[in-house]
C-alpha cells in the first residue's frame, strides 16, 4: 500500500519521467514497464503509481490525453512535456552526481 521503503524519496518521479521519455503510455502499461525494467529490485505498488502520476501532471512535467488503447478501450495516456524533458535531464544529471559522490565515499578503504 505504501511506497516501498527502498525507493529513495523522489526517485519514483525520476523513473516515471524516464519511462515516459521513451514513449507515451497509460497507467497500467507504466506499471508493467516499471516491473519489467527494474525487476524485483524496485517494488512500486500500483497504489503509489497513480498519485505520483497525478502529481507530475499537476506540476506540468507530464500531460495526459484520453486515447483508445490497444484493446479498443479508452485509456489515459501520459506524455512528457518539453518542460518535463528538461526537468528529467536536470534531475538525471543531479542523480549521477549524487550517486557518484556516494559511491566514492563508500569506496573508501578502512585503515
Amino acid at each position, binding site marked *: *500500500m505504501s511506497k516501498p521503503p527502498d525507493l529513495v524519496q523522489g526517485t519514483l518521479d525520476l523513473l516515471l519521467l524516464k519511462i515516459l521519455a521513451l514513449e507515451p503510455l*497509460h*497507467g*497500467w502499461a507504466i*506499471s508493467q514497464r516499471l516491473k519489467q525494467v527494474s525487476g524485483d529490485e524496485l517494488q512500486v*505498488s*500500483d*497504489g*503509489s503509481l*497513480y*498519485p505520483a502520476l*497525478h*502529481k507530475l*501532471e*499537476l*506540476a*506540468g*512535467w*507530464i*500531460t495526459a490525453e*484520453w486515447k483508445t*488503447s490497444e*484493446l479498443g*478501450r*479508452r*485509456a*489515459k495516456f501520459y506524455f512528457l*512535456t*518539453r*518542460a*518535463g524533458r*528538461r*526537468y528529467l535531464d536536470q534531475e538525471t544529471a543531479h542523480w549521477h552526481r549524487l550517486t557518484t559522490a556516494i559511491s566514492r565515499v563508500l569506496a573508501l578503504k578502512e585503515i
Partner: protein
Amino acid sequence: MRRWMHAIPARLKAIFLRRRIERDLDDELAFHVAMQTRANAREGMAETEAYRRARVEIGGVEQVKERSRDVLPLRWARDAMQDVRYALRGLRKTPRFTVAAVLTVVLGVGANATIFSVLNPLLFKPLPYPEPERIVNVFRTSPQSDRWPHSMANYLDHRARNTVFEQLVALTWENTSFAEPDQPAERLFELRTTGNFFALFGVAPLMGRTFNDADDQTGAEPVVVLSYGFWQRRFNGDAGIVGRSMRLDGRNATVVGVMPRDFEYPLFWGTIDLWRPFAASATLRQDRGNNYLREFGRLKPGVTPDQADAAMKALGKQVLAENTLFDQREGLRIEALSLVNPVMRRMSAYAFGLTFLVLLIACVNLANLQMARTAARAREFAIRGAIGGGKGRLLRQSLTDSLVLSLIGGSIAIPLSFWCTRLIAGQQFADLPGVRVTLEPVTLVFAFACAAVTGLIFGAVPAWLASRADINDVLKQNPQSMTAGRGPQRFRQGLIVAEIAFALIILAGAVSLVRGLQRITAVDPGWRAEGVLTARLGLAGPNYTQLDARRAFVDTLHDRVGELSGLSSFAIASSTVPTSPFGSSTTFRVEGREDPVLAYNERVSPQYFDTLRIPLLRGRTFTPDDRAGRTAVMVINETMARVLWPSEDPIGKRIGFRGGQNPNWREVVGVVGDVTFPSFGASSSVDTPFEVYQPLAQTGTGAINILLRTTREPESVASDLRRIVSAIDRDLPLYGLITGTAAEQRQTAQLRLLANVLGGFALLGLVLAALGIFGVVSYSTAQRAGELGMRMALGARQSVVLWLVLRQGVGLTMVGAGVGMAGGLALGRVLSSLMPNLPAPEFSIVLGAFAFMVFVALAAFSIPAWRASKTNPMLVLRHE
C-alpha cells in the same frame, strides 16, 4: 517557465472541474483493474479471482482514489466544504443537541460581549489624556469625610511645596452668564482652573493656544478657551473665533483657543463650555477658610501614588501646623483618577469576574454536549476509519462540527449583542452626554474564541480516541445499548456537577452584591425627593457685585415665587437638592472649644427644611424674622450636635468662624435630621458629615437654587419660573431644571445599572446551567432508549423507569449544589471582607439559591426522564 503552460490548466481543471476529475480517476482505475484482471486471467486464474486479485494488488481502489485526491490542489478547501456539509447534516439529525449547543454559544458569547461593552467605558477605558495613570486626585480628609475640597491658600502651599507632582492643579465648576448685547443671556458651564491645567492634562488645542500661568496672574487680561462642543453649538465652528471677545458675567474676555472634541470627556467633567483661569486676587490667594477647590496632580515620572500619598500627608501636616486655627486632625489623601469611584470600580470588577464564570459554564456546557455526542458517534467514527477515512480527516470533521456550531451561535450572538448594547446604552446612558457605549470587537472575539476552542478540544479528543478504537470491538457492540465507557461518563458527570456548582456560586455572589448595592441606595437620604422641583441661576456680573444688590434680588425672587399657585412650600438655597454633597464647606470654631470643626456650609431661606422634608429635631428652623441686623443664628445637623455636645442642649450654643479678630458668633437655634449622601467611600462610616445651615437673609449668596414642592406639572412650573426670573432681570438665565426624583436617579444610575447587570448574570448562569443539564441528560437518555424500552417491555413500570433516570440526576444535583453552596459562602466571605458595605455572607441567601438551583436542575433532569418513560417499548424493540 514552460511547465506552467501545462500545470496551470491541469490545476484549474482540478479545482473547477471536480466531477470530471473524479470521473477520470474512476475510469483510469477501472481501466487499470480491467487490464490487470486480463493479465491475471491469462496466468490461469478464474475470472472472479483474477478481478479480486487485481483490486487487491492496486492496494484498494478507494484508498488509491483518496490518495490521488490528496495530490490535488486546494484539497483542504474542498474537504472543508464537504466537512461543513456533513456537519450541517449531522446537526440537523440531532436537533436537541444542536439547539442546546447553539443557545449556549449565543448566551455565553452574546451576553459576555454585551456586558463587557457596557462596563468597559466606565471601568477600563483610560481617560483620554497622556499617561492617565500618573494623574491623581488630592482630597482633604477629616474625621467626618475623606473627600473634602481645598481652599486657595492651602492649594498654593501644596503646589509650591510638594516634591512629588510635576503639576498640581486646582479647579472648580462655575456657571457663567454669557450675554451679548441685545440677545437673551445664556448659561455656560465653565471650569475655572489654575494656569497649569492644560500643562497637566497635556492635550494640544485644536485652534489657537491654551492658557498658562501668565494668564493666571492677578489682574491678567481675561482669556477663555472654548470646548469643541460649545464652539460648534454656539459659533457653528467659526474658524475665526480665536481673538474674538466674549461678554462673560458682564466682563469681556478674549477667546484664545478651542480644544479638540475628545478633550471634553463629559462623563468625567460634566458638560464644559469653556475653561478660564482664576487670575485670583491677592485676597483670594490668602483665603484659607473657603474650601471649594478640587486638586488634581500629575505625578513626577517614577513617583508611585503611594509615595505621593505619604509625601502629601506629611506636607498636609506641616501646612496645618503653621495654621493652628484649623482642625489638626485634617489630612491629605491621594486617590487614583478614575471615572467611577473606587467602590463602584471594585464592585464592577467583581461583576466582571462573574462574567468569566458564566463563560466558564458555557464552555462546560459545550464540552459536555460535545462529549455526549462524540460518545454516541463512536461507532460511526470507527466505521469511517475502517473504510479509509484518514485519522486526520476524522479529527478535522470533529473540529468542523465544533466550528460550525460556534459559527451558527456566533452569527446569532453578534447581531444580538449589537442590539442589546444599543438598548442598554439608550436606557442607561441617554442622559450622560458623550458616553460612547459601543460593542467591543475584542470581547466578542475573545468570548467567541473561548467557545470555539472548548468545542474544538472536547469534540476532537474523544473523536481521536474513537478513531483509534479497534474497529471490531466497536462494531460488536449494539449501537443503541452502547453506553460510554466508565471513564468518559464519570467525566461528564463531573462536568454536570461543576456546572451546577458554578451556577450556584454566581447566584450567591450576585445576590450578595445586589444586596450590598441595595444597602447603599437604601440609606435614608434624610430628605424626600418626591414632588420637589429645582432650578438654578447665578448672580454674577457688574449688577450684583454688592451684597445689597444680591439680597434685593433674592428678596424679589422670593416674593414673586411665593405668588405662584400650587406650591405647598418653596425655598431658595445656595446648593441644589442634596443628591450629592453640598457645594461648600467652612472651618468653624465652637465657643468654649479649642479644636476647629469642618462642616458643610449651606445658606437657606426659611422654608428650606419644610420643602425638602428635613425633620426638625430640636429648637426651631428659620423664620422671616431672621434677617440682617437681627441675632445671627444657625441650624446644625443631628450628628454635629451629638458629637459637639453629647450631654448638653445644643440650643443657645455659639459657633463662629475661624480667622480674623471677630468670630462673628452665631447662635444655634435648631437641630435638624442628618442629610446623607450615597457614600461609596472605602471607609463606610463617614458618610454623614457635619452640616451647618445659615439664614440666606443674613448671609447672601451668589449661586441661587430655587427648590419647590409642588403637585403641579414640572413643565408648567418651569415656564412660570422662567417668566418670573426674566421679569426681574432678563440677562439672567434659569437653568438646571430637574425634579428631585430625577436628580436622585441620576445619582444612583450607575448603581442601578450594576445591580441590573448582576441580576442578569445570575439569571444567565442559571439558564445556561439548566440548558447544559437538559441537553446532556436528554441526549444520554435518548441513548438509553433501547435499554429503557427493554426494561419496560419486561414489565418495569413507568414510574420505575422515571426514577431510574431521575435518580442519577438527583445525586448529581445534590453533589453540585453542595459544592456550589460551599463556594458561594466562601465567595461571599471574600466579597464582604473586601467591601465594607456588603452584607456578611448570609446563609439564607445561599440556602435560597441552593433550593432554587436544585429546583432548576431537577426540572432539567425530569423532562427527558419523563419522555423516556413515555416511550413505546414496541417501537424501541423493533428498532433494535
